[in-house]
């Protein structure tokens, strides 16, 4: 029922939950996990298996929360016994694609462990094999193990999986292992030893987003799994949840609280021109296209002419099968690689020019009807159904409306100005955490951040993404954090820091001269469009920072939250502001343009000069910004560094056995 109907019939309803503003509960745990998405659940599970007490704090409801909560169709870049590809080769796809600006540590961990992670998921009840023989005999199936593969049928490094089963399975496993789950609870700050920025993390504060009750978590070790900021450049006040790929609640809470606590970040200057977040898209995976979930779907124009596919060398492919095989001399195909080494077959690259010449007629359509039967069924029925946000919104909704994959051509919005995947967009319409890789926390080989006692996993890490990455890094961080917790004594929380945070949170419920979170987010994203668009210069970036300082002084003290839900949204937009400031500082520090970072400076037009091929780092010391740098290959030898720290694990690993 709509609120208006209710209000008209019965008057404005009362807030449905009891209000406990100021009421305080303290919890002491060995390991505290902040964020109950894919990384968080895996971290909690592997820490709990070490025999330590684990508490997990989740803003939504763990059973379906997080970017990977609704589903997942592929488990990519996973070396396994059926593939010849090594972990080093798998990581190289990310290195090549990003021009080196990748998180090789956090990419190498899944390359070694995500096959084990997948097998464990199966034991918890996740479906990872075609046990019902739905695709018996298909080229993408291994008949013995019943695994299904995607994108590269020869090299078998990307699995097709039934990801709608994953999150409930993880949730059940957390409960079985005795993880204390605090749902509808938003973490708001990290607590440092002695209330000193940069010192050991000894817990966190949080509040219940329905009742407003305040929580203090005292923990020997904390694992941050709070995803990444969105709504930095683009915000639609009437459509806030409309077309962000990740849940719109991913607003950089983890980034902001770790930054305030003194943790070190990198890659914060990277952004991508993209319309995702603009409210102009179509349901994700819900339009005809040949990418990702829909690979290798045939595309036709309005007159039924098929658009040819080419390999990385521009050779026309003769049949559907060749779209999922490497070109002659090519090692293997990456899932999203743009680099020559791993680029997947794609539609002809001069398609737009040929449309302009009249050779093809818009609109284009996905033609599942002409696909081999098992390819049609696996795109429409498995990939589109198991991928997040595709089962109910697309597979079932379109099916009910009468769409039949055997007979119908699904329209594509490519070149119609509304394509959320590939259309050119205005330079100021940028995104940070919405798509691709972005800035985040820097860690060592144990996934411990620059702050002692604070680990990080999943999208909380810089240059991260993918479900398998969140799972494997969460699992790894849980093992390391659990092991550390066993050795540590009970920490001490500094009461003054708790009081400060408590006052900060509840101040938003007591304003007289009020502005709301939507006006605030609309303004912060406008500032980023105006002063951190593309290209940028020092003057613009500094005005951007000036604006945020003004807002912190004048508008933050007026931000008002009428109930605990709006208090959550209010704290989110303040975190968006903090993340925006981090981005501006990082942009000021990089005095060179880079194609790979989506970063251009008017003053430094040369693209990717070798002298600047390095990471810029950013943190706070005594509340002052401190910029640092790291060599592009700071992670050293992947194999040696990993194996020297994981000797015990190597014995049990299924990696390429």
């Amino acid at each position, binding site marked *: *029922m709509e*609120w208006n109907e209710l209000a*008209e019939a019965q008057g404005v*309803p009362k807030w449905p939950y009891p209000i406990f503003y100021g009421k305080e509960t303290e919890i002491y745990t060995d390991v505290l996990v902040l964020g109950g998405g894919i990384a968080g659940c895996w971290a909690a599970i592997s820490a709990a298996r070490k025999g330590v007490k684990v508490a997990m704090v989740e803003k939504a409801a763990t059973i379906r929360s997080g970017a990977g909560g609704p589903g997942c169709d592929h488990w990519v870049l996973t070396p396994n016994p059926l593939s010849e590809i090594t972990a080093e080769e798998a990581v190289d796809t990310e290195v090549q694609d990003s021009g080196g600006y990748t998180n090789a540590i956090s990419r190498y961990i899944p390359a070694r462990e995500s096959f084990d992670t997948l097998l464990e998921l199966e034991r918890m009840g996740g479906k990872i094999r075609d046990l019902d023989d739905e695709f018996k005999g298909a080229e993408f199936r291994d008949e013995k193990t019943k695994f299904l593969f995607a994108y590269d049928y020869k090299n078998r490094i990307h699995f097709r999986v039934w990801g709608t089963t994953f999150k409930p399975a993880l949730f059940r496993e957390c409960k079985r292992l005795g993880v204390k789950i605090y749902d509808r609870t938003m973490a708001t700050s990290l607590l440092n030893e002695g209330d000193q920025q940069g010192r050991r993390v000894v817990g966190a504060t949080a509040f219940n*987003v329905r009742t407003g009750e305040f929580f203090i978590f005292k923990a020997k070790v904390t694992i941050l799994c709070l995803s990444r900021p969105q709504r930095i450049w683009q915000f639609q006040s009437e459509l806030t*949840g409309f*077309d962000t790929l990740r849940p719109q609640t991913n607003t950089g809470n983890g980034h902001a609280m770790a930054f305030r606590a003194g943790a070190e970040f990198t890659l914060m200057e990277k952004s991508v021109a993209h319309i995702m977040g603009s409210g102009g898209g179509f349901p994700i995976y819900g339009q005809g296209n040949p990418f990702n979930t829909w690979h290798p779907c045939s595309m036709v124009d309005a007159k039924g002419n098929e658009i040819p596919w080419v390999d990385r060398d521009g050779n026309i492919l003769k049949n559907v099968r060749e779209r999922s095989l490497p070109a002659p001399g090519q090692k293997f195909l990456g899932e999203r690689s743009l680099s020559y080494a791993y680029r997947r077959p794609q539609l002809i690259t001069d398609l737009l020019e040929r449309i302009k010449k009249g050779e093809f007629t818009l609109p284009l359509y996905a033609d599942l009807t002409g696909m081999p039967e098992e390819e049609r069924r696996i795109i429409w029925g498995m990939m589109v159904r198991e991928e*997040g946000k595709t089962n109910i919104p697309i597979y079932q909704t379109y099916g009910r409306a009468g769409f039949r994959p055997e007979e119908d*051509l699904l329209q594509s919005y490519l070149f119609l100005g509304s394509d959320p995947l590939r259309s050119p967009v205005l330079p100021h319409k940028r995104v940070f955490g919405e798509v691709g890789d972005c800035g985040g926390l820097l860690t060592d080989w144990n996934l411990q951040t620059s702050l002692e006692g604070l680990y990080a996993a999943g999208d909380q890490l810089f240059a991260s993404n993918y479900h398998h990455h969140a799972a494997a890094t969460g699992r790894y961080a849980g093992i390391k954090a659990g092991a550390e917790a066993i050795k540590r004594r009970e920490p001490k929380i500094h009461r003054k820091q708790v009081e400060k945070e408590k006052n900060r949170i509840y101040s938003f419920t007591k304003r007289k001269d009020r502005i709301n979170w939507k006006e605030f987010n609309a303004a912060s994203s406008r500032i980023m469009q105006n002063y951190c668009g593309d290209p940028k210069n020092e003057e613009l970036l500094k005005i951007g920072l000036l604006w945020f300082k003004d807002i912190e002084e004048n508008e933050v003290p007026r931000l008002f939250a009428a109930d605990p839900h709006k208090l959550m949204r209010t704290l989110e937009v303040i975190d968006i502001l903090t993340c925006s400031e981090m981005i501006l500082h990082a942009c000021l520090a990089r005095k060179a343009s880079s194609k790979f970072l989506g970063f251009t400076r008017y003053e430094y037009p040369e693209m990717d000069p070798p002298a600047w091929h390095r990471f810029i780092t950013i943190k706070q010391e005594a509340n002052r910004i401190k910029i640092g740098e790291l060599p592009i290959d700071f992670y050293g030898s992947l194999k040696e560094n990993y194996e020297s720290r994981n000797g015990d694990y190597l014995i049990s690993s299924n990696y390429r056995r």
Partner: protein
Amino acid sequence: MKKRISATPNPITPNKPLLFEKRRCSGCNVCVDICPMDILIPNPQKGSPPVVLFPDECWYCGSCVLHCPKKGAITLNLPLIQRVRWKRKETGEHFRV
């Protein structure tokens, strides 16, 4: 009898993300507890469909529908501007979601 016309603000969002079938919904509030955006609240009248308090925040993930114990009690209602078209290959006939 004249229908009373109330003074109400404009809708907060162009969209109506969820439709409830009153006869099928038992008011169990499973959807209220599953929604990752927390857009629903229980109906003050027990046993009635929940109230969509924050329709602008819907992520359109469909988790509420997926976990609803009564089939057909909730329908995810895609925004009109997100309705995609298709064409029947043989006949050229046009359709839309």
